[in-house]
């Protein structure tokens, strides 16, 4: 009787231990899941100053349709001029597409930020864009930064 119990117990423990080598990559599925929303900012390849430009934002959700957004605003500002941000409300032009029209007065590097809100979700991706021609200084500023040495800290 004891022997049977012992064998049962040890096999149980061994099976348990085999699952303990590492955490399964899909273990997260067993816990609370968060809905993921994605927004792709579409900017035309060439943008010239003093012209009307169409900026599009395509909003998608992982497995579900995106319901009507609570708000979709685009923030535009020139690099180095963070204090002056232009905010334009996006207009829904298709099921998952919102558009704004903007005119850029100067050449240079700009940032476009899409603030997308539904009732429960909020994302704010930012994309860089170039208007007209850049000065030598501006073009140089786009070159890759020298990588700082990354000290690997121990896990928290």
């Amino acid at each position, binding site marked *: 009787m*004891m022997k049977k119990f*012992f064998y049962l*117990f*040890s096999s149980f*423990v061994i099976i*348990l*231990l085999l*699952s*303990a*080598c*590492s*955490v*399964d*990559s899909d*273990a*997260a599925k*067993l*816990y*609370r899941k*968060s809905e*993921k*929303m*994605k*927004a*792709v*900012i579409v900017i035309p*390849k060439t943008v010239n100053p003093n012209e009307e430009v169409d900026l599009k934002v395509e909003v998608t959700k992982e497995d579900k349709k995106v319901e009507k957004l609570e708000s979709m605003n685009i923030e535009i500002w020139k690099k180095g001029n963070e204090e002056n941000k232009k905010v334009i409300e996006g207009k829904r032009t298709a099921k998952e597409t919102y558009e704004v029209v903007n005119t850029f007065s100067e050449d240079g590097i700009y*940032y476009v930020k899409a603030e997308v809100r539904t009732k429960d*979700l*909020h*994302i*704010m*991706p*930012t*994309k*860089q864009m*170039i208007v*007209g*021609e*850049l*000065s*030598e200084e*501006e*073009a140089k500023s*786009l*070159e*890759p*930064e020298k990588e*700082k*040495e*990354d*000290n690997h*800290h121990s896990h*928290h």
Partner: protein
Amino acid sequence: MTSEDKASNRDKRPSVKTSSSSLYKTIWRWHFYAGLIFTPFLLILAITGGIYLFKPQIENVLYQDLYEVEDEGGSISPSKQIEAVTSKYVDAHVYKYRPSDSPNHSSEVGVHIGDGTYTIFVNPHNGEIIGQLNDKDRLMDNIEKFHGELMVGTIGDRIVELAACWGIVLVVTGIYLWWPRRKTKFWGVVLPRFSKGKKVLMRDLHAVPAFWISAGLLFLIFTGLPWSGLWGNTFQQITTNAGLGYPPSVWVGDAPKSDVQTKEIADVPWAAETMKVPLSTSKDLLPLSIDDVVKVADEQNVTKGYNIIFPQTDDGVYTLSLFPPKAQDEVTMHIDQYTGAVLADYRYDSYKPLGKMIAFGITIHKGTQFGLMNQLIGLLVCLGIAGVVLSGFYLWLKRKPKSKLGAPKVAENPKQMKTLSFIIIIMGILFPLVGVSIIVVLLFDFFVVKRVPQLKRFLNA
């Protein structure tokens, strides 16, 4: 005469070879050796633990000048606070930011400079740098390191784990030895006997307090074990994988990854001529500013006091980590570093039952869950453990014959050995380090002790 008196007068009476006396002696022998070997470690655990219980109060005094700021109103954005740090410490690499959690409290910026890790304290109202702290110099962190791994890393962690598991053996065997032979016994069981002479008193001063704190000691061991490097990590991985414990990334397991949208290299026209200049990265989107991360945290109702850990790779995430005094307020949140989407929101409520138990066990173990009372009761148990350890040591010193170790001698009883071996094997499997140490002892016993007569005599083997 009762069995306890028999034990204390062992050297005077002829040994009675009843089966219960033989079992008693065997269990006493285990208790004796476990105690002799592991009490130094249990003492270290009790002393360091007792101090660490008061970490909040101690750190509030030690670092008062770094923590406290005047509430002068107004505030500087997180990004500007961090900018103040990086402009002063030019070689610093920021890896962590802890926003101020009250108008009287500073913000903390965690940086790596060279090989060192520092926390820079910033005034959130005016962006002034208050001071810095080298992580190496944090007293309570060092005490915690001593407590958890004897300050010697992995091998220390295993020794502490081993000592804690053998602590279980000590309590279980101790309870067997203490158990009153007559049901109505009070003195020598629940209270020590002061009137039966010094020897009885010394024994009672070990066994009776030990009984009182045994529940506390077992609680500390069982709540500390999920923390340990071997048993604890394995236990965490089993429970997380089974969907019963912590969600992944809170203790073990990986965080989700950020969505990296790549794009083609573009032509960058510039004034002089049109030249192909590869843009700074192949990523399409810019990383979120720290101000937006704090905004997301506020929107998600994460109470201030959290740490924001910066992503280390292109597909890394911003991780919000809040481990407050009460377990039910814990938050681990992962935010996409480009879009600010909340990829995972793991609060205490999303822990499964075993995860909740472990979390609660930890905060009670650390003395933070129930405030000052928790700390004081913890301290009492730590003092009790130290007292029991020292009184046990004293008992041994008094009993020890000159040329021998003083271990109780046992005549082998095959019937009892079977049940005992069975229990030992189960313990060895449930607590693998104990199992390994028992095997080591058995091998040592068979190959060395039994063959060296002086050793055999000394150890009463």
